[in-house]
């Protein structure tokens, strides 16, 4: 299956489980079901899981899409160092959190989902994955001269002038230079640092 980053899926699954725990907990508490206090626990556990799982970890390769506003929780998670980095700890934590919710029917789906997330985290941990915070890219002051890109030195491929019977039109300026010279840019190039 190639290099699947299991932790990414475990993260989505755990976040979904957190939401399901919260929903089940609210139903049980609001409906005053038998043993509804498990529902209250479930809401608390669900909120905790959601906060823990909200900041996405960085992928091993490629760019990672951040969740909206996740940098605040990322800062908090970084403080815990290995506790949040290590996926074995997360797997065990999620398994333990899921058990009490299993005593109540309304939250049993949350238990099952969180247990599955725990299993996927275990798989990720076995494969050596780790949670790495997504750091904001530092703004670099560019050095003048190094960032001015040279326009392409070769013109786009053109047949010899005899074969081209097109009259020169305004929009042909992109290609309307004689072969051999440097490409003149259709509009003035300004270096915009983003």
């Amino acid at each position, binding site marked *: 299956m190639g290099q699947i980053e299991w932790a*990414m899926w475990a993260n989505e699954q755990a976040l979904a489980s957190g939401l399901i725990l919260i929903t089940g907990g609210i139903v049980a508490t609001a409906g005053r079901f038998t043993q509804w206090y498990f529902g209250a626990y479930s809401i608390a556990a669900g909120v905790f899981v959601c906060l823990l799982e909200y900041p*996405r970890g960085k992928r091993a390769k490629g760019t990672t899409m951040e969740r909206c506003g996740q940098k605040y929780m990322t800062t908090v998670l970084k403080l815990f160092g290995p506790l949040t980095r290590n996926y074995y700890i997360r797997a065990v934590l999620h398994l333990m959190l899921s058990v009490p919710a299993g*005593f109540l029917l309304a939250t049993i*789906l949350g238990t099952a989902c969180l247990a599955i997330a725990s299993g996927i985290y275990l798989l990720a941990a076995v494969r050596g994955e780790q949670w790495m915070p997504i750091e904001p890219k530092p703004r670099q002051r560019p050095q003048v001269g190094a960032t001015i*890109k040279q326009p392409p030195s070769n013109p786009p*491929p*053109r047949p010899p002038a005899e074969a081209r019977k097109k009259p020169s039109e305004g929009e042909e300026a992109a290609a309307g230079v004689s072969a051999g010279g440097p490409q003149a840019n259709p*509009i003035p190039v300004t270096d915009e640092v*983003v």
Partner: protein
Amino acid sequence: MMGCWILHEGLTIILVLSWLGVNLYLFIDTFRWYEEEESFHYTRAILGSTLAWARASALCLNFNCMLILLPVSRNLISFIRGTSICCRGPWRRQLDKNLKFHKLIAYGIAVNATIHIVAHLFNLERYHLSQTEEAGGLVAALSKLGNAPNETYLNPIRTFHTNTTTELLKTIAGITGLVISLALILIMTSSTEFIRQVSYELFWYTHHVFIIFFISLAIHGAGRIVRGQTPESLSLHNVTFCRDHYAEWQTATQCPVPQFSGKEPSAWKWVLSPVVLYACERIIRFWRFQQEVVITKVVSHPSGVLELHMKKRSFKMAPGQYILVQCPAISSLEWHPFTLTSAPQEDFFSVHIREAGDWTRALLKAFGAEGQAPKEPWSLPRLAVDGPFGAALTDVFHYPVSVCIAAGIGVTPFAALLKSIWYQCCDSQTQLKLSKVYFYWICRDARAFEWFADLLLSLETRMSEQGKTHFLSYHIFLTGWDENQAIHIALHWDENNDVITGKLSFPCLVGVFSCGPKALSKTLQRMCHLYSSADPRGVHFYYNEESF
């Protein structure tokens, strides 16, 4: 502006609203039925409104589960596209949005599933509580029904000394319900856009849990746990009168003990046809997999691009379409999409494959694209091909003027198109509606697509040989900058010149086609609305999107 948007997106909006309307109608109609139906009066006495909530959402679930397999039956969609029933324009474009419909229906399933689960949680709790000592009156009397012989039960929970979880796991509905919910959640968490980008294989393989989903759905109602009074019992037992005389049911002949029966399962009736249709779809894919694909030419371009020319019996394509390719030697389950880069007029079909992941890397290696000596034809791995599947570019020929914009790898479908345009315009027999093509190509540097640059060059030469130099006008924007900046430059360049609208005779339709990043298509869509004239006699830019 708003008016233009409505005009262009109108049919999609109508379809979505229709779907929503049918959902609402089914929900409300079922809800009212269960709230008012006499045979469920006693069930309602125990459960209250949550019975109706559960049943209404169940019907919507049946409806949506019936629909969900249809937008992903690729061959069915290609078949519909091929027939002339809904051939042109707006209806064809809806077929291109099939994945969006699939996702919309999935969200509908998720919402209804949530309502259904929550309602049944309440139902189970109420059934359980009605077995307590404190439960009085009618509810208690109803719950005791079934204890004596000759009595049918109403309350599936027979005693208070149990818990709802155990009771759930004793019923078919409960177990299958849990399995269905888990399957749905696994499918949804592995289908987020992020996961699809991280690992398409994970998304694809996990999605096959839908098989478990549909099997469990079909047997979900087999336990007949939704119970209502039988018609015979209703005729003997007048509910309106007898509900207040429950103490006398055992004795009085005026109110014999009410008899109940379970509702028979109906989900299988809804999903049977789409499941059979989808099974046929997969069989067609398997059959196409078995068909022989002859590789007639392998070209390894210096830019790391592999060009494959293939032949397959009765393979017919249109420019802009794509095929699914499988290489059993690499992976027996993976099918990967590639746009066709040959024209229909050629006697072979071709794709250009660039390294973009594990599978493509392995394919390039297997075909000797890594600079070693060319491989012997007999040592090349076998390929299977499914398709071709439809895409929007076939509409290019239906407009008098077409504007094609390609960014980066999005240039591939236009290879087939431009070749096909050349064949058609140089064939003096065919009278083309299309009279002018503007082609814009934006990419970081042309090296990765040097095969396409060669194609453009040869097309231009051949067109000028035929004296049709004015037919195709192309512009290449090479940039090592951010693609967004390049797109910005490309689009605003023409804003100043107003080239296209200035040269057209009114009324005119201009088809705009693009293939590239989402930012490009969003901007182009906006531009098309902006520059389209509100006057039906003016110039209209119709935007067609291509996406994988």
